[in-house]
């Protein structure tokens, strides 16, 4: 069953006089109890999509389309209602915990603030809940009086996870939760998020550029390129039978597959190429590619792909 449904989402904003089409017609469904990976390179618009879902984009951003969560369109909600939903129904783990945590508030305070605001708890009760939360993410509750700078990168990430899960949301959005962590810490954070999400019967939207992390965690994966989704499939299909040439290149760029390079740069979101946005870098361009914008096509094994190569099926 679907928990969150995004329909034809467009997020545009102006930067230096140009319209940046950060998300250009996103259709995506997050099902109950699933871990969905959103994979893409820097600047493909994946973090913006994550922020759009929780309504964290600033006012000068133009948003069109629908984001339906439990029969409510998030884009129609008032700021008040949105603030209630954020955290309680949809939690988010922001990128870069060093910047997301307030340096002048103790870690414990930052978590208990959530309880006090959302659930009108008293100080004592909030503190007990905070301690439980910290314990759950593997931090000694005694450290709740310490400040963010006293925590290592991995520990800060754990704090962010505790904050994202504090109100037991039905959906968690994790934006690059393993970025900048060394491999051992990364594995631990991956295990922790998996365990918590599965135990609590939640859904997770994992935004990452790291295929390895996606492989370990995800049930399904959506691949994003230049503001649109170009392939959605189960992780098994993505790994063993990738359809879109970009997805194939992405897999071949891994060290295990010999780090095969793909020529060219990702296009800018303000002036993407016409037709298929990947065609200037693509190995298998056919006549249609530079001219027409491809639609999503479902192939036999249930993969959806935005590519003319699969048109006939």
């Amino acid at each position, binding site marked *: 069953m679907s928990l969150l449904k995004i329909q034809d989402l467009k997020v545009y904003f102006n930067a230096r006089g140009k319209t940046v089409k950060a998300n250009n017609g996103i259709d995506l469904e997050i099902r109950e109890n699933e871990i969905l990976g959103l994979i893409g390179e820097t*600047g493909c*618009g994946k973090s*913006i999509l994550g922020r759009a879902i929780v309504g964290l984009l*600033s006012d000068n*951003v133009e948003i069109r389309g629908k984001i339906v969560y439990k029969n409510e369109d998030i884009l129609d909600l008032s700021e008040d209602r949105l603030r209630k939903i954020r955290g309680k129904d949809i939690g988010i783990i922001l990128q870069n915990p060093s910047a997301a945590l307030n340096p002048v508030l103790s870690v414990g305070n930052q978590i208990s603030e959530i309880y006090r605001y959302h659930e009108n708890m008293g100080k004592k009760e909030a503190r007990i809940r905070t301690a439980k939360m910290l314990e759950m993410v593997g931090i000694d509750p005694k450290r709740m009086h310490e400040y963010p700078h006293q925590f290592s990168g991995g520990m800060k990430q754990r704090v962010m996870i505790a904050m994202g899960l504090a109100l037991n949301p039905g959906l968690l959005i994790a934006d690059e939760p393993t970025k900048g962590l060394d491999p051992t810490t990364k594995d631990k954070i991956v295990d922790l998020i998996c365990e918590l999400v599965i135990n609590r019967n939640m859904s997770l939207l994992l935004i990452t550029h790291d295929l390895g992390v996606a492989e370990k965690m995800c049930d399904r994966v959506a691949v994003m390129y230049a503001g649109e989704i170009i392939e959605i499939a189960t992780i098994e299909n993505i790994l063993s039978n990738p359809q879109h040439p970009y997805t194939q290149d992405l897999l071949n760029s891994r060290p295990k597959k010999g780090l095969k390079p793909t020529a060219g740069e990702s296009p800018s979101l303000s002036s993407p190429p016409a037709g298929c946005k990947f065609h200037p870098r693509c190995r298998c361009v056919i006549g249609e590619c530079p001219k027409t914008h491809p639609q999503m096509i479902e192939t036999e094994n249930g993969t959806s792909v935005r590519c003319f190569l699969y048109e006939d099926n």
Partner: protein
Amino acid sequence: MKKLNDIRNILKEAGNNRMAAIGGAIVILLVLIAILASLLSPHDPFEQKLENRLLNPCFEYPFGTDNLGRCIFSRLIFGTRYSLAIGVVVVGITASVGTTLGIVSGYSRGIIDETLMRIVDIVLAFPGIILALVIAGILGPSFLNVVIAISLTHWPAYTRLVRGITLSLREKEFIEGARALRASNIYIMRRHILPNCINPIIVLATLDIAHAIIFATGLSFLGLGIQPPTPEWGSMLKAGIPYFRISPHLTFFPGTAIMVTVMAFNFLGDGLRDMIDPKINEIILVSE
């Protein structure tokens, strides 16, 4: 072309920041007044007509006359030159000296840094006006001595600011990269550190011009600055005090001139800070 665009963007920003625009406009106006003083003033600022003493503002003397029958309007116009000159010269000296010391201090660290920063602490520990009074008292009152007195008290602000920026820049990879290229320390300070300090220095300098002007008029007011009959705003203010009851315009107009000038530079400086400070200006979205 790129530079031109930058300037255009700043002007566009200035349009959005009304306070900065007002401040900037007044500053430009003041500069024009200072340059064109002899054309704009209806009378000779030194000409004494004792029969016209203490006239109220009228058609011939827009701001009235002072106790020696001189045209206050003309004197104020010429006074703009002194105030702006002091502001610009003082800031020119303090900003360049302070910045140099700040970069050297932050970049070399160790004993040089320690020594310089202790000197900064000592200068900052003195109340500025008293230190300036002492210096002006020893050197005697004159334009040059006012500049020296204010400069000696104002440079530490730049040193502190620039040292802080330098310390954080020093950790950046591009500085380490330049060291790996075996560029000389002087080269690194000049080509890599200085250009990255310029924006905050400009903000501080603009605010500091206002501060220097008020400092200079303060010294004149206390009789230690530029001396009469030179039409300096501070000394005009002082000269008007005995006539405050009967002819308040003697003090009102110089006072207003000081206030407007200082405010203009403050508005401009604050506005520039908002425009330049990346933290305020950052669009969260683009940081993806």
